[in-house]
Every structure is written in C-alpha cells, then in structure tokens.
C-alpha cells in the first residue's frame, strides 16, 4: 500500500447547531448553504426534484436534510441530523434540529454536544415560543456562542426596520438569559440572499454573509483542565487488568498518583495499554479512549472516576441541578428514577422543585420560591454531624433524604419540614411537565463522583431515565459536600470516623486519660497505616468496626483493603478492634452479629455494660504515663 501521499491536515470540526421555531427555515438555510457552496453530491438536487414531481409538492431545499418520507410529506423536520461542512478556514459538523415542540427531545439530542448555535427566526412571524424555548435550552446546555439568522426577509421586502425589531427583541431575550449573540444576519434562504452571496436587496446591512460569519465561531474552550476519566469497564482479557474509559478532561501520565472516586482509592498509573505499538505512549489527554494499568489490585468498576489526588470530584448523594424534562409522563417529585452521570448510575429522586419555568411562557412567568437553593436543609445536615450521631453516611437523615419506603405514595405532596411556603396560587410543585425546565434538588441512593457543570462538563451533567427511555437531562449547579470529617477512613463510597492510631496517655497531674494528635488525618483505600505506635500495636491483618458510622474497615498487610457497611461485613478470622483501637471480643461471625445487635441498642444506660462484655483494653493498647506531652516522657 502506498503512503506517498500524506493525508491532508484533518482539522477538528466545530459542532454547530441550527435551532429555532418550527417552519422558520432552519433546514432551508442549511440546504441553501450546501447548495450555494457546491457542497452537495451530484444527484442530490435531482433526487429531491424527483420527489417534488412525484408528490406534486413544491421543490424544497429543506428536503436535503428532511430525508424521511413523513418529513417531506408534512414539510417538517422530525429528527435531527448532522453533516460535515467546510469553509476555507474551518471545518464544521452542521446539525439540523427540529423546531416543533413535539420534537424538543430530538432538538436536544442534536444540540446537547454542540459548541455553537444559530437561532433562526422568521422575519415576518417574529420571535415565537420555540425561539425562546430553544434559547433557554441552549443556555442550559452551556452554549455561549450564538448567532442570529433573521430569515425570510423576502416576505418583509427586506425592510431594515423589521430586521432591527426582530433582532433586538431576540437579543434582549438572550441577554436576559445571560447570553449575547455574536451577530445577526438578515437572509432569505429561498433566494440565497446573504447566505453565501451578499445581497443587493440589503444595502443597509454591512455585516458578514452567513458563510463568512461561520468563521467567527471558535472551538469551545475546554471546560475544566483537571483529569476526569470515568471508567466504562474493567478488562481482564489476558494477564493485564485494564481500566477502560475516555478521558473527558485533563491529562494522564504514567507515574501519576491518582484517586479513584467515589471508592476513594489511591494508586499509581503504571502503564497506558495499547494494541498497536504506534499507539503506545506515556500520556494521554482529553478526548482519548484509553486503558490504564495501575499498581494496586483494587476492586474497580464501571462508574468510578479517575482524577489526580488534588482536584478530585466531590463524592456526594445530594445536589442542586437545572433540568429539562422530555418525558411524556411528568417528572414527579419523590418518584424513583434512574440517574446516569458519565458512566455512573444511581437511583434518584427529586427531593423538591426550587424553581419551575412555565413551559408556555418561559422565563416571564417563572415561579420563584422565597428560599435559596442552599437553604436551611444544609444547616440541618451539619447539625446531624455536630452531635456525632449520624447513623449512616450514605443517607442523610433530614428533609428530602432518599426515601427508602417503597409504599409511600409517589405523587403525594411531600412534607418536608424545611420546605419554604410556596406562592398560594401555585400550590406545591410536585411535578415537572413535558418540555419544562426547572431547578431542583436531587437525592441519590448511592453517592457518586460529581462535579459542578461549570468546572467539569462530563461529570457535571446527567440524564434521568423513566421506564425504558432517557426522559430528562440536567446540569449540576451546586453540590452538597460529604461529611467534613478530619480523621478516619474513606473509601468504597463510605466514610468512618476513628481514632485507632492516636496515642493515649495517663496524665499524672490531671489524673485523666488524654490523647495527642493523629498521625495522618485521613486514610484511603490502599494507604499504609502505622501499625505500631508508642501506645498501641496492631497486627498486619485486622478489622476495625466503627459502630457510630456503621462501617467496617479491613486492614490487610498493613494497608487499608476496603470499607464495607457493617451489615455487609463478614468476619474473616482476623482480630477486631473498635473505633478507638480497643479489642472487640469477636471469634466468629455469630459473635460479630451479636456485637452489632447489641451496639444497635447502645444508649447511655447500657454503654458500660456493653464495654464490659465486649471490649478488651489490654491486647492492642496500653496507657503509658505522660505529663501533658507524651514525647517528653519517652
């Protein structure tokens, strides 16, 4: 095979979507652009002429895009399509989107990953409902590069006043959303005015033609430079164990210390695998599909996210989001949905609706609640922490926490104590209808690795699945942080507080037992722990059970091997200590179950009795005598 001819430079393409109200001419504008730039294959126009002749319909350039029989018969775009296009300077993927409100889901499918957008408006009809709705959706999707096309200028005799008025109305609307259009072009797709050729009918217009304006768009800046590599799968086809996924942002190098969230496992990249020698390398960056080999054999799974140690995603099960709903059935507060974020998945509920944007009139009649997104529920959360009796770090015990009761009526108005009173005329917002957008608080069944959409796109957006279909999507605007604990263990989606590696001493002067500071504030899965201290000595293999957090930590060969919920923990024959490092007298799974049972009934009254029965102060710890500072006594 000859390789004499090197392939021409193949530039990355800008994804550009055409949006706007139904019938305002999006497909015709694209068709005209293709036609007037000679970008069509031979026979394409002949083919649609044949269709017009057969069906007796007028010739429509839109048929170049609207390929389905149903689309051509009804003169409407049903589904989105995309095609490659180039100008002298840049390469594009042009995306045609439908304007009919029935097909908003298809518009969103087209627009979701676009980097720039045109809003097409019919000069005669002016700004209509879907013009505004599409603008809102573009904003929500994070698009900032927007251009206006005021089409069908032939129908208003190329009147500059009409152009001005439509253009400024839409610009004002966009500005109210925080968007500012880059340009506004008066065109007639029917005749090709200002599409490729400057029009003699708009001597008052001095801006670029559409094809020239395309070059004003640029590649969307990369959002978030921190490494995010969501795992798609873990392969073991041969003796290698490969973590497979696509890098969504940042760079990964062989030798990097990485964190795998939400499991919170620390490890090191040992190699990037490749089938072909030509693909072997020491680093890979955003957009690449890779296979990562790491130095520790953890249990890894799809949905985990690789990041660097600093700048990791937040592990949380509660966040605020802006969402759009495309489902035929309304989105119901408190109903269970499947949520997918990058490659991770959890059951999810909308805890409450913070703000609802009316589908018909959009922003003009949005319902504003009195309460800010980060209201008192967060304070309530901290209260739970402060008194130290939070039961299970996976679920928070306050308003809107994941509702585990299956028989709770799904559409019953929820009775959250912190809920702000809503405007009397609206009542409680308990559902979000077809094509509506809203700001909501979401609670997950399992914590996931999450980012703010504004900092990392791929791990800051999600879809909701109702039944078999993706029915909604959203972007994360605020994340509730996990427990702000200072010492203990974190991993496998769990957190446990403990003081196992702290030094205790008997203070002769005060006649009390005191402790000094910790060795290390937080241990992750994979971390080595200090087995031997001045006042303690643990074996290589042992288990720590932390009753207050309901978590068991397994230490194997001196390293944190994993965290499990107490209910899933099984006794493997190794010594067991409690969260303070005192031995727990467990010699069998039965003992373990008994201890759990007893400690679930822990109260001020039985605490001493339980300690007497189960704890052993002498095996792993001793209480040396000190006088204020242990180091002075040694």
């Amino acid at each position: 095979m000859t390789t004499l001819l090197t392939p021409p430079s193949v530039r990355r393409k800008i994804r550009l979507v055409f949006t706007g109200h139904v019938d305002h001419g999006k497909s015709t504008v694209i068709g005209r652009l293709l036609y007037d730039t000679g970008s069509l294959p031979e026979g394409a126009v002949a083919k649609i002429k044949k269709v017009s002749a057969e069906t007796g319909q007028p010739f429509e350039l839109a048929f170049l895009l609207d390929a389905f029989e149903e689309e051509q018969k009804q003169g409407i775009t049903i589904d989105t399509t995309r095609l490659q296009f180039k100008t002298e300077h840049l390469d594009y993927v042009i995306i045609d989107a439908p304007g009919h409100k029935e097909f908003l889901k298809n518009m969103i499918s087209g627009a979701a990953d676009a980097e720039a957008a045109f809003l097409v408006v019919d000069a005669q009809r002016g700004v209509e409902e879907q013009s505004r709705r599409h603008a809102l959706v573009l904003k929500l999707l994070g698009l900032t590069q927007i251009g206006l096309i005021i089409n069908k200028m032939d129908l208003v005799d190329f009147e500059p006043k009409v152009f001005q008025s439509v253009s400024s109305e839409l610009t004002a609307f966009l500005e109210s959303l925080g968007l500012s259009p880059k340009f506004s072009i008066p065109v007639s797709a029917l005749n090709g005015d200002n599409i490729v050729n400057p029009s003699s009918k708009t001597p008052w217009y001095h801006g670029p033609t559409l094809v020239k304006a395309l070059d004003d768009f640029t590649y969307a800046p990369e959002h978030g430079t921190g490494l995010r590599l969501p795992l798609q799968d873990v392969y073991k086809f041969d003796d290698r164990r490969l973590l497979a996924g696509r890098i969504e942002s940042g760079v990964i190098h062989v030798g990097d210390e990485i964190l795998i969230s939400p499991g919170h496992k620390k490890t090191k990249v040992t190699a990037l695998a490749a089938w072909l020698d030509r693909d072997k390398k020491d680093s890979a960056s955003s957009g690449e599909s890779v296979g990562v080999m790491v130095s520790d054999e953890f249990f890894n799974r799809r949905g985990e996210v690789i990041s660097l140690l600093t700048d990791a995603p937040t592990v949380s099960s509660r966040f605020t989001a802006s969402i759009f709903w495309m489902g035929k059935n309304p989105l119901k507060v408190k109903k269970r949905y499947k949520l997918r974020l990058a490659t991770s998945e959890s059951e999810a509920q909308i805890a409450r609706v913070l703000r609802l944007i009316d589908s018909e009139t959009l922003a003009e009649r949005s319902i504003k609640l009195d309460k800010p997104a980060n209201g008192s529920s967060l304070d309530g959360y901290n209260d739970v922490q402060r008194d130290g009796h939070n039961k299970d770090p996976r679920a928070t015990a306050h308003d809107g926490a994941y509702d585990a009761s299956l028989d709770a009526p799904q559409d019953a108005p929820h009775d959250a104590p912190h809920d702000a009173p809503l405007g009397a005329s609206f009542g409680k917002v308990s559902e979000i209808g077809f094509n509506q957008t809203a700001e909501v608080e979401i609670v997950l069944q399992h914590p996931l690795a999450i980012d703010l959409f504004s900092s990392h796109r791929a791990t800051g957006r999600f879809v909701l699945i109702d039944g078999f279909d993706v029915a909604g999507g959203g972007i994360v605007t605020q994340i509730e942080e996990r427990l702000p604990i200072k010492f203990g263990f974190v991993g496998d989606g769990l957190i446990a507080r403990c003081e196992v590696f702290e030094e205790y001493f008997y203070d002769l002067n005060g006649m009390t037992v005191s402790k000094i500071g910790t060795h290390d504030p937080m241990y992750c899965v994979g971390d080595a722990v200090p087995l031997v201290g001045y006042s303690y000595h643990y074996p290589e293999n042992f288990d720590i059970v932390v009753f207050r957090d309901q978590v068991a930590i397994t230490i194997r060969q001196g390293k944190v091997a994993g965290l499990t919920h107490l209910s899933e923990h099984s006794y493997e024959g190794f010594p067991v200590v409690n969260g303070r490092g005192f031995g727990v007298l467990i010699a069998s799974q039965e003992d373990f179950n008994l201890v759990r049972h007893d400690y679930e009934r822990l109260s001020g009254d039985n605490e001493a009795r339980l300690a007497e029965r189960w704890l052993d102060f002498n095996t792993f710890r001793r209480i040396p005598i000190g006088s204020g500072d242990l180091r002075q006594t040694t």
Partner: protein
Amino acid sequence: MNHLQSLEADSIYILREAYSRLGRLGLLWSIGKDSTVLLWLAKKAFFGHCPFPFIHVDTGYKIPEMIAYRDKVASDLGLEMIVWQNKVALSAGMGPDKGRLICCKALKTDALNAMTKHYGFEGLIVGVRRDEEGSRSKERVFSERNEDDEWDYTNQPPELWGQFKTDFPKGHHIRVHPLLQWNEIDIWRYILDQDIPIIDLYLAKNGRRYRSLGCAPCTGIIESQASSVAEIIDELSHTNIAERAGRAQDQEDSYAMQKLRKDGYM
C-alpha cells in the same frame, strides 16, 4: 486531537459502551471497507481481543472474491465467525430477478432478523454512516429494534452526552452504530493512516473499481484510475458523485432505503 483521532476515540467509546451495557453482542461484518475499519476499531477498543462474534449475512450473490477474502481474514485473525443465509428463500429461487427490493428483504433483512433471533443477540454492531443515505442520516448511535426487528424512526428516544439507549424490553435489540459520524473519505483516510489491509476490489484494475461492495448483480463498478488508497482519497476529494450511486436498491424508489430499514435492514 485531529478529526480522525477524535472519530476513532469516540467509536471506541461506543464499542466499549455496547460491550459493557448490552447482553449478547455481535458485529456485522460485510467484508467492505466500513466493517473492516470496525474490526480494526474493535481490536483497539479491546486491546487486541474481539470479545464477540463476527457475523456475515451471506446472500449467496456476493462478489466471489469477498467470500474468499472473508474466510482468509477470519482464519488469519482467529475470528469467531457466524455465516448466515436465508436457505429457504435461496432454494426457492430468490434472486434480484424477483425484484430488487423483494430480494434485499428476503436475503438480507429476513436473514438478518432470523439470525438475530436464533442467537438471541441483544446488540448488533453495524458500520452504517450518516452520509450514506437519508434514513441513515437520521439514525441514533444506539438504535432500538422491536421484537419484530422494526425501527420506530419517527419516535426515536433522546440521545445525548454519550448516554445511549440501553434500557428496553426483552426481545428488542439495539443496532449499535460506531461509524455513524464518519464520512466515506474519513474511512479512507483512516485506512491510509493506519495502514489497514482491505480487499483489493476497491482498487482500480484496468480503469475500473468498486466504490461500495454488495451483491454482484446489484453493485455497480465505477470508472477510476485509483489503484491505491491514497489515490482513492484523491479521487474522492474531487468527485461529487454519491457513494451509493452504484447501488441498485437505492434507486428503485425515493424512500426505498427507509422502507427496507424500517423492517430491519442494516
């Protein structure tokens, strides 16, 4: 990352999603350039392994060199191959003389659908591209087919942010389209860039070559001097004749492909 690298990475992402999310999976391998690129991408996605069978729906009318090439590649690479034919229709004398669309339906669509049912495939990886023809231009990356293998194309579910259709009733299956965003010339540039071996029917001999491979009676040969991949790329950058212009079944009726594909044609 340039255009080809990003097409490659995204196709690998799609293949891995299919492998991770769908049950029994197979790859439709038609010996042509697109499915040969698919084979290459699968090798890359799974680090030299191909964790699913390759399927050839053999109409019995394929260009003979294609069958020889298929068997050679399959044995060279140790592929798990499934070759399927609609034997009943063939022995009853089905052929293009019965009408091209009728023949395509029986020997391709019906055969494919029977094969899917027989093996209980939940995912079929197919190398179709948007730029081939109208109904493909509107496809999803993960495209559902119901228990009768039909495509409900006027009511496709949303597909965004790499979140594909992976929830569906039992008995339905998904057509996975990793090459949907590729154009014909991208395929050739990638073949050149990666030095992928391809069947030589694409290369001009005596001023003629195949641009698209299908069944012998229905696939046209084009006039061409392009006897290397580089020359094919050069030729394609200067032509504006559509790739499937030589495919007879596309020309029968304005919506021929839409109708065939609605019933389960690839």
